[in-house]
């Protein structure tokens, strides 16, 4: 039974096991590989996408659960907070291995979309579900503040 949803603004119909996690549907069936597999149990945040603008862990979200919904992946990010976040990521040279950064950017963008001037505590709350083994946390924090500053300006 195909599942229909809107992926990065495009109506999408995927004929797949409805229990398949959205992560694998997006990566292997829709061919969008920016969203990453890190743990499979919602512990690392590498698979973060937006469901109706809210960050979710696609590795534990069954495909059936997104029927009729809007899903945004790193490939479909748009709008001012997203652009500010991605620009700050490059400006502050955040990525090292880069593998977790799609998920980090999705979480950071969702944070800024609802809170244009997050405090360090807000950042901790929004970002502590995203693991970076390279230890880029300090730069992620600085980049979120920098992105917030450009949104304010």
């Amino acid at each position: 039974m195909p599942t229909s949803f809107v992926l990065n603004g495009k109506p999408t119909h995927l004929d797949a096991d409805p229990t398949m996690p959205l992560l694998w549907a997006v990566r292997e069936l829709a061919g969008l590989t920016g969203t990453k597999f890190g743990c499979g149990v919602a512990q690392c945040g590498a698979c973060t996408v937006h469901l109706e603008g809210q960050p979710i862990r696609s590795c534990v979200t069954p495909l059936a659960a997104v029927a009729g919904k809007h899903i945004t992946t790193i490939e479909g990010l748009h709008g001012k907070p997203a652009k500010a976040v991605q620009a700050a990521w490059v400006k502050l040279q955040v990525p090292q291995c880069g593998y977790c950064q799609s998920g980090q950017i999705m979480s950071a963008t969702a944070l800024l979309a609802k809170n244009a001037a997050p405090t360090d505590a807000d950042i901790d709350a929004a970002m502590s579900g995203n693991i970076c083994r390279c230890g880029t946390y300090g730069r992620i924090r600085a980049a979120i503040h920098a992105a917030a500053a450009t949104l304010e300006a």
Partner: protein
Amino acid sequence: MAANPRDVPLTSRRGFLQAAGAASAAALTIGFEWRLSGRRAMAAGAIPATGDTNFVPNAFVRIGGDDSVTIIAKHLEMGQGSYTGIATVLAEELDANWANVRVESAPADAKRYANLAFGMQGTGGSSAMANSWNQLREAGAKARAVLLAAAAQQWQVPVTDLRVEHGVIHSPDGRHATFGALVATAATLPVPETVVLKDPAQFKLIGQTIPRVDAVAKSNGTAQFTIDFALPGMLVALLQRPPLFGATVKSLDASAAQAIPGVVQVVQVPAGVAVIATGFWAAKRGRDALQVQWDDTQAEKRSSAAIVAEYRDLADRPAASARKDGDALKAIAGATKKIAATYEFPYLAHAPMEPLDAVVKLSSDHCEIWAGDQFQTIDQANAARAAGLEPAQVSIHTLYAGGSFGRRANFYSDYIVEAVSIAKAHGAGVPIKLQWTREDDIHGGLYRPLYVHKLEAGLDEHGALAGWRHVIVGQSIMGGTPFAAMVKNGIDPTSVEGAANLPYAVPNVQVDLATTKTGVPVLWWRVVGSSHTAFAVESFMDEVAHAAGKDPYEFRRSLLERESRMRAVLDLAAEKSGWSTAPLPPGKGRGIAVAEAFNTYVAQVAEVTVGADGKVRVDRVVCAVDCGTPINPDIITAQMEGGIGFGLGAILYGEISLQDGHVEQNNFDSYRVLRMNEMPKVEVHIVASALPPTGVGEPGVAPIGPAVANAVFAATGKRVQTLPFTKGGFA
């Protein structure tokens, strides 16, 4: 975003085509092996050949008629910034226009691309910049010399009249030409045998903060990792490995697995049972449905507690000598004050964010591998053995690695060999991607070994350190591997580095090593020996300083008179942290530690707050580093920051423990790593130096553990001697 060639995903085939479209196709038609084979696999003739000439003066650079400067990186980019560093050094001597520089990974070819520190192709030991510094400078300078000669010939002017700036050669009469305009002539000229390198005072790129070549692709989801790589018709395999190290398959019932839609085949391979399917999810469901009985008669069935007890016993028995200066036992026996401590270090997993994976396409005479490959020469040999081919029949495309921390640099090529053996068992020549899960990674062995360290010291009547004895007990990383020749007189240098080379001036020093055997496979882990020796040495030195009634910074300093570089980073970290000038309020503490690893010197001062519940929060870390010539200060800073975060997570929370041989952790829920809310503020200070560059990927990890443990002591009077901190209720 792809208008700038640096911004395309560097190792991505798709990025390749975008680059081809954006720039001249000419630069993409050169005969580097991996490219040719890559194109064959994609679509014959997809990139039209042109008559344009490229200038390929050596194995490390190719200059196109479109002015593109393609620099071939022999080292894996796993986050440490190697691509940017390599490109910077070569482009510096070439005087290239940085905007035209792009980086491509080298094929597996030890003749051209050996790590000069290893004698084989591979990345590790923080050696990428150190081993290739002169090689890359010469490669760039020779290419520049030929381009100058080409301009001189075309314009009939003396070469000494010409100058090069940003990829353009200028003549005093106003004529000028870009590199691209000179490639046809340059390609006909001889490459000089020798060349004069730049005076460092003339450096324009080295020493500057050049943005990473991979930053954009890694901020928009286009950077291509192995997990993202696909070939037409490719299948995905998951492998069921035994639940105990050393167990083997006794019997298999694959019927339920084979009934899962999407499962194509179940095959038994030396490492376990593989489920091959149309995609990850079907393979995962198939693997979950496997019924495997295991033969565990040869398996390791001990618990960590039993191994620690054995090691503690061995620490009191005679062991191999790694260093003996004077008579430490006598000096300690006769000391006015004696100090002793025993430290326990657990097994640690590397847990890179990208679970291990490899894509293999196997035919009767060729094995083609795509992976975040770190040990190309060894992987080539092991893959050849698994495939029944010769190493020369194995080609490797090295993609970005989603972290490694040592895990991918392994003698056994475990994940590569698994993928090859599955492709061989499948037998149809269909490309196979082997994908590990996080649980596979946490259970997968090749851990940083478990160690017990026992230290004793004696102070004389003046409070001077008279004797130092250090016994290390643990498994050898290199014994029984192709690197076994490095193990001499029972001493694996990776077990004692950071301890046997104790830098402090102590008249009587004895360092011994008891090498153990367990069924748990082990491997180097970021900063290798210093991941445990630095903790033991620097924690114990702190204990000794306090026993002597001295300030721990001043005490260390007094013993480092002949170690000027080490003392300089110690001084710098102390000064910048306010060690002597800015006391902390009660409940907070400051600790200091210093280490040398891979010829790089790092000192760190950690500030902690210990809550009423005894939990440690690291607030601030001040880090001083001397890595010789700083090639890219921002990457050095990033590696120190990252090393601190990586090391801090390990000492606070990291542990792989065994219960009756079973690994007790499964995923990031139970193998805890550092998170955003636990990352301290980090300040990095780089020592100015004109010495040849040394590495920065690992050394930043070494001092953080003892700096934090010493800070906890300063705050609470309690010593942390068993890792991780969670075991003592400190985290």
